């Protein structure tokens, strides 16, 4: 599903040049659950942004579902993203002015799903993450665990092929964290590919494979048994 080869990303400010990704090559197959680990500044977030088509690499190749996307413009990337990729963030990133229902509905609006259809799909997915009873609440009225469940619901409402999770349990206590991890595992078992950046060895154990990064390169891969 994902094949990146010799990927490079360099951040430049006036004085400093920071190499975030240094000729990185990774492959993720469809249906895999991959955890990316490494110290702060090793480039894992940059990797996730490029995989999510939020950022473009300076050099190298990125093949997504058989298509070379490294040189896509913003419009093409947005189009590919909204149909194929779901995001889960550490800080949830729900829109405060929208209700739970409306937050989850948003990706469907951008992909042009009809209103009646939207309602059905949002309710389905809210049911699945057991937050249906709070559908008309605003994010601030929910606990952290509930907010992250809404965020997961929003990530999967479009039935994406790939979910990118950036420390999804970072802001949660352990029981809420486990619940979210279980949800991701369930999704993976239903066929969704997942790439998760995490600091937590505990969370990483939910994955099939751990990629460990340092200074913009992979240093080790562990296959989980």
């Amino acid at each position: 599903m994902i094949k990146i080869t010799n990927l490079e990303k360099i951040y430049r400010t006036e004085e400093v040049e920071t190499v975030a990704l240094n000729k990185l090559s990774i492959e993720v197959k469809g249906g895999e659950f991959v955890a990316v680990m490494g110290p702060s500044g090793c480039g894992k977030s940059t990797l996730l942004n490029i995989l999510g088509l939020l950022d473009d690499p300076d050099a190298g190749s990125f093949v997504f579902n058989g298509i070379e996307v490294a040189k896509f413009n913003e419009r093409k990337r947005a189009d590919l993203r909204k149909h194929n990729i779901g995001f889960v963030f550490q800080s949830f990133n729900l829109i405060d002015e929208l209700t739970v229902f409306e937050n989850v509905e948003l990706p469907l609006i951008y992909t042009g799903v009809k209103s009646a259809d939207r309602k059905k799909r949002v309710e389905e997915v809210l049911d699945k993450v057991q937050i249906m009873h709070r559908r008309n609440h605003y994010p601030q009225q929910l606990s952290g665990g509930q907010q992250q469940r809404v965020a997961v619901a929003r990530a999967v409402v479009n039935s994406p092929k790939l979910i990118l999770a950036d420390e999804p349990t970072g802001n949660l206590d352990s029981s809420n964290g486990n619940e979210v991890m279980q949800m991701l595992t369930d999704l993976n078992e239903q066929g969704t590919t997942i790439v998760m950046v995490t600091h937590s060895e505990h969370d990483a154990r939910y994955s099939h494979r751990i990629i460990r990064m340092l200074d913009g390169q992979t240093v080790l891969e562990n296959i989980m048994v």
Partner: protein
Amino acid sequence: MFKNYFKIAVRNLWKTKGYSFLNIAGLAIGIACAGLIFLWVEDEVTYDQYYSNNKNIYKVKNSQTYDGTTFVFDATPGPLAQSMKADIPGIKTTARTTWGNRVLFSLDDKTIYEQGLYVDSGFFSIFHFRFLKGNAANPFPQLHSLVVTSDMAEKFFGTTDIVGKTLKVNNEQDYVITAVIKDLPENASFNKVHWFSPFRIYGENNQWLQEWGNNGIITYVQTEDNTNSNSINKKLVGYVKSRNKEANSEMSIYPNSRWRLYDSFDKNGAEKEGRIRYVKLFSLIAWIILIIACINFMNLATARSEQRAREVGVRKVLGAVKSKLIFQFLAESLIMTFISALVAVVIMYFTLPAFNNLVEKHLSLNLLAPLHIISLLVIVLISGLLAGSYPAFYLSSFNPVMVLKKLKLKNGAGAGFIRKSLVVIQFSVSVILIICTVIIYQQIRHTKDRDLGFNKNNLVFMSLQGKLKDNFTPIKNELLQSGIAENASLSSSDELQYGSNSGDFSWDGKDPGKQLLVSMVFVSPEHLSTAGMKLKEGRDFYPNAAADSNNVIINETLAKAMKTKNVIGSIISWGDEGKYTVVGVVKDFIYNNVYTDPAPLIFFCNPGYANYLSIRFRPDSDIRTALSGMESIIKKYNPGYPVEYNFVDDVFDMYFKGETLVGKLAAVFAVLAIIISCLGLFGLSAFTAENRIKEIGIRKVLGASTGGLATLLSKDFIRMVFISCIIAFPIAWWVMHSWLQDFEYRVAISWWIFFGAGLLALLIALVTVSFQAVKAAIANPVKSLRME
């Protein structure tokens, strides 16, 4: 999709009520102000559209050139109308009218003066009045016919069904009402006219109008469809001269569309902008006020961008492209503008009476009128897009990776600079308007305080009705004996408007090639002393008018123009009319145009041509008793006529109507611009204080004083006001300098006005900003530091 935007917009408005209030209040004031101005503009530019064929309507203009200066006016020779219709193809109808006649009508014991015109019957083919009663095709079936407006009909008869009834005119002649027309709207020519009668009646009493050399009436022309006015004007070149060799008149026809807004001519006789200047100026100001209000929106929206940044990031991650986000933010600003427009309509409804009072019109806002509703929507659309454009492009350009990672947005330099520039624009406009207001008022004051050369106070004049002229001597004697008046006199025109003039004067040593236009006034001997004019040389007229019938008094300007050593005793010839000896020179006094130096003028001692009675009250007299005493004396000698009079100083004040209106509007605009700018500044300073709350906390912990912190927070804004002044001063100077060029008698622009306006703007800005600055500075630092 739009529903989603709408929801977000409304919830955002609600969440940030304070900012929303500032935005909506600013925009609503701006839209209401622009709306009122556009109502005024609509009224001005639709003037005379009441007359359905106004594209074919013209007025004949007369140009006369004296010594290189061309005067353009409406007075035309009597025979012109009939003659040009017969001679020039393309002319469908012509009609002569008088300038306006105030005539006494009576029915039983009802006696009322009404303003009207003597017109040729062709007048009704040119101007399509709405006939309620009577025959529009033949409105004047007999000599003493009378067409009246429904207003006048109601006044006398209480009904409009009055065709065939009679009214007595000037207590002498019965006129038969032959038609009743609908009252004219305010923005149509002749809206102050209440009756029309055949021109023949006037013509028979004024035989002098029959000569080509005398210009005494107005001529209107209706052209055939698809006739080019140029072709008619070509035929009019030399037209009057070919009939009267001595005439110095060139005729041309002047279209109806220019009467109201232009009808102003420079020294070369070329048309220049009249009222249209104000229409343009006010339209421009309306847009400027709108822009100022839009700037508030831009500034507050971009200042608050960090709060919206995360939303932008999330939406981008979820697949929104930039164009969709731009659309969303534009939609938001349109919603905001729309709400403002609704508030503006309410404001307009409440302020319209005051505005009408100010501009002396009866404007009304009609939301069912397509023009009004469409204009309002256009204003909403334009200001919404204008206000939303910059925030939309700015907000939608955020990089989702940066904002979601909570990295510092690099908006410091660029956006901050634009925000500051926008505030500078707002304050520049405010400062310019303050300066203009002050200078306009100074100019009005300056001219009002001008030494007129006569005493305009305690002086009334009235037109000579009935037996007033015949009974002048007993009236005067009784006024003086009763102690009411100091003096009284007769004259051919009132003190401020010396109407008639001639270029036909000559004297020894005059360059025969050069004609000089000289004003003529025919007076009784007491006129100069009644008006309070002062003699420079020679003597006043003798009390016995007959003794001075061949003598004249001239003004200083004419004396200078004559260039003779001994003016007193020199002879002035007036064409074939006769020779007159100069017995006195009167000190220059101001007449006709308060802004220029007086033109040459001759007083003839000939009360026979008088049209006005002037009465000077004693300076110590109580005006109310003096007036009632005057009325009873005049009634005694002139029974059957209501006493109508004007104070010269009241009439004088009316001369400043145009300038006073501009001054008042400039003041209103200045205040509005400042209010709107301050609303924005208030929001912006609140934002700045909020944004720097942590910095303030740290500084406070390290020992900064409240005063020092308030200064720190205000400093930036003060600098902006300074820059605004630097931009505003030269612009204001240039605008006022060119405005003042229109007035020969004008005030000098003094530096303290600029200084004062700058100081005022600074003070207002300081008060606005310091509120937030002090609030932030006295806040408990522990709280603000713990927030992180």
